[in-house]
């Protein structure tokens, strides 16, 4: 089941060029409105004003050679291996279902991004199980950032031994794929009482230097566990010093921020930055403020998989922004 975000009511009401993200004189929201009238039968993927469209038959008939030069990857998050409570007594099964979903995508992703809470209690067996399950994914390369559940008891030492090769400090790093620059950040260390997520001065300094010399046309993807925008501070859903990190990205035309932690999809567009959080593969959490606490949310068994999922991200050559598509497991 694919989720397609509705354009905002305000956007539909206007008939003007309000956003020109791709610098080609086309207002995406206006385009969408026209598309709906024309009934061209395209799958329009629009998230908060950032648009990519695919002909409906393209998804089924996509062949790898048709998409040479394009980048495709999948984000998964919050597998919480080791969790075993009523909200989901078998998180290994739902992670396997996520891998099946990945393997069924019309375009095989080049790699996976795991945005943390790989394990539930930082136990070696939990990490081992996730590694084992991910081995059967079509994409063999997996890039990780830790969640707070991955760095328990040892300041993240075990996490770094397993997944931190080539990283610095608590496990931050960057890499390039197909001209897209990826920045993996760690915002779950040294958390202060009453605070939110935290990047820290050392990491911020590293990041500033890391992106300083990139050309402004380089698409940027930043990924970290806790949201890098303030989703709901009462539940700790935000990062104290993310504004500084984002200030280093002002010059770039396309920035996509991928996070996890909140176990539901949420999206925000702010200027050139698209923020997106992924579903968990383990258990859902309530919407902000709709429960006494952000803990695991128990739903009827037949609904569980409709609230878990993966995020497919595609870069199409010539398009500025990345297309971000969430799919549920059931």
């Amino acid at each position, binding site marked *: 089941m694919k989720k397609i975000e509705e354009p905002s009511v305000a956007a539909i009401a206007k008939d003007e060029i309000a956003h020109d993200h791709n610098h080609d004189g086309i207002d995406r929201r206006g385009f969408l409105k026209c598309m709906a009238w024309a009934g061209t039968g395209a799958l329009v993927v629009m998230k908060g004003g950032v648009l990519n469209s695919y002909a409906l038959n393209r998804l089924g008939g996509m062949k790898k050679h048709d998409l040479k030069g394009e980048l495709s990857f999948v984000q998964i998050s919050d597998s919480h291996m080791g969790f075993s409570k009523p909200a989901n007594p078998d998180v290994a099964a739902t992670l396997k279902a996520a891998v099946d979903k990945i393997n069924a995508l019309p375009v095989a992703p080049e790699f996976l991004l795991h945005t943390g809470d790989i394990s539930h*209690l930082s136990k070696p067996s939990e990490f081992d199980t996730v590694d084992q399950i991910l081995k059967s994914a079509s994409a063999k390369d997996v890039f990780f950032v830790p969640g*707070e559940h991955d760095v328990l008891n040892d300041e993240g030492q075990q996490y770094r031994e397993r997944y931190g090769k080539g990283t610095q400090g608590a496990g931050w790093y960057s890499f390039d794929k197909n001209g897209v620059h990826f920045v993996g950040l760690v915002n779950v260390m040294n958390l202060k009482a009453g605070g939110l997520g935290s990047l820290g001065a050392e990491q911020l300094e590293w990041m500033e230097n890391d992106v300083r010399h990139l050309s402004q046309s380089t698409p940027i993807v930043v990924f970290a566990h806790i949201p890098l925008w303030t989703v709901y501070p009462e539940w*700790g859903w935000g990062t104290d010093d993310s504004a500084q990190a984002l200030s280093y990205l002002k010059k770039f035309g396309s920035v996509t921020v991928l996070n996890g932690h909140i176990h539901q999809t949420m999206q925000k567009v702010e200027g050139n930055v698209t923020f997106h959080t992924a579903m968990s593969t383990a258990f859902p959490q309530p919407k902000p403020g709709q429960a006494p606490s952000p803990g695991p949310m128990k739903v009827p068994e037949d609904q569980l998989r409709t609230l878990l999922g993966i995020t497919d991200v595609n870069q199409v050559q010539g398009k500025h922004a990345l297309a971000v598509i969430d799919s549920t497991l059931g």
Partner: protein
Amino acid sequence: MKIKLYIVVAGILLALQIAGHGQNKPAGTPDAKPAAEATVKIDNFSFTPATITVPAGTTIHWTNRDDIPHTVVSDEKTFKSKVLDTDQEFTFTFSKPGTYSYFCSIHPHMTGKVVVQ
């Protein structure tokens, strides 16, 4: 006659009791007062009671009744629990008076306070 005896015995016992309460006996002596215990419950991403006031020498038991792991970490690192899964417990004995703020290092918006008098 018997009643008088009872009164005398009762009086002696009472006197001993009063004398006993007034003394500052070292722990471990056979008739020392049992140490005070108190409990803080962890549930729904909160510590209950959020602020607990106890006499010096009290041992506090934090019990995690939530379905998510938590920790108990003092702001000044005076005490620090391991990760507590559901039904696991952490204890700490507060011998010095003072105010001890603490939080859950996994979910730092969860905070609590121990006031030791």
